């Protein structure tokens, strides 16, 4: 491992020198267009653009320069809020570190993302975010919501019995921690109702594929799904 670490360090040095013409393959400049494609993986939780709202994750409008964990109306983990209080602001450098392995930089964050090893992809993504959230916040109509159609709309119309939800939720809490911690299994506390219901239906309809989640959701009817959404939506992450 140690040897590989040195090689990586050497590679970084070579990459840095690359711009001066020493390396065979100079690393390309960050490209927001490529970054937009990378962002496709983030869209399920994060909205950008003029109408961006908080969803499963906080919206990213005005991200650069924003204090970590500081948006009103979003239930951050205490770990994220603490980092913000301690002075963490989002910029190219801090985003790059965070996106490479969120749990290493902010242990206890409830962002269920394993991290992105590819530094080039991170740079592209950050370039896209910088463009979309600062330079042209209103240029993208953010059709994220539209093409998601009305999947789960019947369940969304049901209020959901939180007591029933609490019992049903006990099935989920064997893996998904009530505290909102994510240790290899995503956090599902504090999600907006619609997002929660949509995700469940995406498992039920094979849009999302995961053996355990498809099993777990197969026998859930609209009442059950609405009850679960009500229960988990009402939990605060620790």
């Amino acid at each position: 491992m140690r040897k590989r670490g040195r090689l990586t360090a050497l590679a970084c040095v070579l990459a840095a020198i690359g711009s001066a013409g020493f390396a065979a393959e100079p690393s390309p400049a960050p490209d927001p267009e490529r970054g937009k494609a990378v962002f496709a993986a983030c869209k399920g939780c994060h909205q950008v653009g003029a109408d961006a709202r908080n969803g499963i994750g906080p919206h990213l409008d005005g991200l650069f320069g924003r204090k970590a964990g500081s948006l009103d109306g979003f239930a951050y983990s205490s770990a994220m809020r603490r980092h913000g209080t301690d002075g963490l602001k989002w910029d190219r450098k801090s985003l790059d570190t965070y996106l490479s392995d969120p749990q290493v930089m902010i242990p206890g964050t409830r962002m269920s993302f394993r991290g992105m090893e590819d530094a080039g992809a991170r740079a592209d993504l950050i370039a896209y975010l910088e463009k979309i959230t600062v330079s042209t916040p209103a240029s993208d109509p953010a059709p994220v919501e539209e093409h998601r159609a009305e999947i789960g709309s019947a369940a969304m119309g049901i209020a959901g019995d939180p007591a029933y939800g609490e019992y049903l939720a006990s099935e989920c809490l064997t893996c998904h921690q009530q505290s909102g911690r994510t240790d290899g299994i995503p956090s599902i506390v504090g999600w907006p109702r619609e997002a929660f219901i949509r995700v469940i239906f995406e498992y039920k309809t094979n849009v999302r594929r995961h053996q355990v989640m498809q099993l777990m959701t197969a026998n859930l009817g609209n009442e059950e799904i609405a009850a679960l959404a009500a229960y988990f939506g009402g939990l605060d992450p620790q």
Partner: protein
Amino acid sequence: MAGHSTNGLSRRQFGFLAGAAAVAGAGSLATPSIVRAANAPRVVIVGGGPGGATAARYIAKDAGEALDVTLIEANPRYTTCFFSNLYLGGLRSFDSITHGYDALEANYGISFVNARASAVERDAQQVVLADGSRVAYDRLIIAPGVDVIHESVPGYSKEAEEIMPHAWKAGPQTKLLKERFDALENGQQIIIVAPPNPYRCPPGPYERASMFAHVLKARGHTASRIIILDYKPKFSKQALFAEGWEEFYPGMIEWYGPDVHGGIQGVDPETGTVETDFDTFTGALVNVIPAQKAGMIARDAGLADDTGYCPIDGASMRSAFDDNIFILGDASIAGAMPKSAFAANSQAKVAAMNVRGDLVGSKVFPARYTNTCWSLIETDNAVKVGGQYAPGAEGIASTSTFISQIHEPADLRKANTEEAAGWYQGITADIFGA
């Protein structure tokens, strides 16, 4: 232990004081809860594993001071059988699979009694502790796990455990097996005697073989062999293990069912041999996993049938023989559900809801049960099997199931290992409240 002896008053007084401390400063609001606590019905749970501790936590969490919850467990700290194979494989420390009861006491007001429960007096509705003191109950939950049946393997015995560890109840046996395993030299043979159904953790013996092979391979002990002599003609996730062994440990693991070995005649701890109809196998390390039955306290209380396990009502986990008693986990006859920590944890939630329904009249929803078992084959390769279950006419039946497929991509198998680690964090938080 005097504080937990014959009269329940001392425990209730403790609850009274703890309750008072918790609400100190809340003014007159404190009074009603103290009155309720003093008269609260008593729930006693015997066994602090995945079934018992989960039940204690859910009852205490949801009923608050309306119920007086006491958890009786012989060990001060609990080492999980699940993931103990990863300890054997050098992927986990012993500490990381060992958990205390502090959070259950501090955060949920559960009275933790660190003592061995020796008997249940069903008519008097009390549990007898090893020191002779008694703990009265209105509802009792028994989750004692399994006892190994030494005599099911001729030549095996309680004493022979020290030479041929079973390590099927996590703790000193697990450490002993690891010590013995770590002392092996290249070329020395390991034998695993795998038990007949039904037993705790159906894929466990084969995950253990995988973890042994993982270590042998890393040590360069390529001349060593692991031989599994099985009482069963087939086993859980067999195709997946066979595929994984071929891929990662070619030639290192040999599995023989009864149609090959013809029957296991017995073991000899003196010579390290296992006698079968086909041949005599010799191992520098012999891991004998015998047949199993419900923990003694459940059998002695007359709660087991002639299978050695305890029949229950699948709608509630209530004993078929006593309306005031619920049986959870490995000790129960839970129909299609395997004997696993996940299953016990799931059953505990159904029982907890029914206990609260009995004693405080809270709403009881239809029982739902779940299980998923992950098994590690290699560091970055795990497979899984799972099911959902519901009470049926013939006991608990499966309503849907899945299993990993052969030829799955490596990244899916790697994701399974991360998911398994996440599950461990999740379920232990759900069980022990920390």
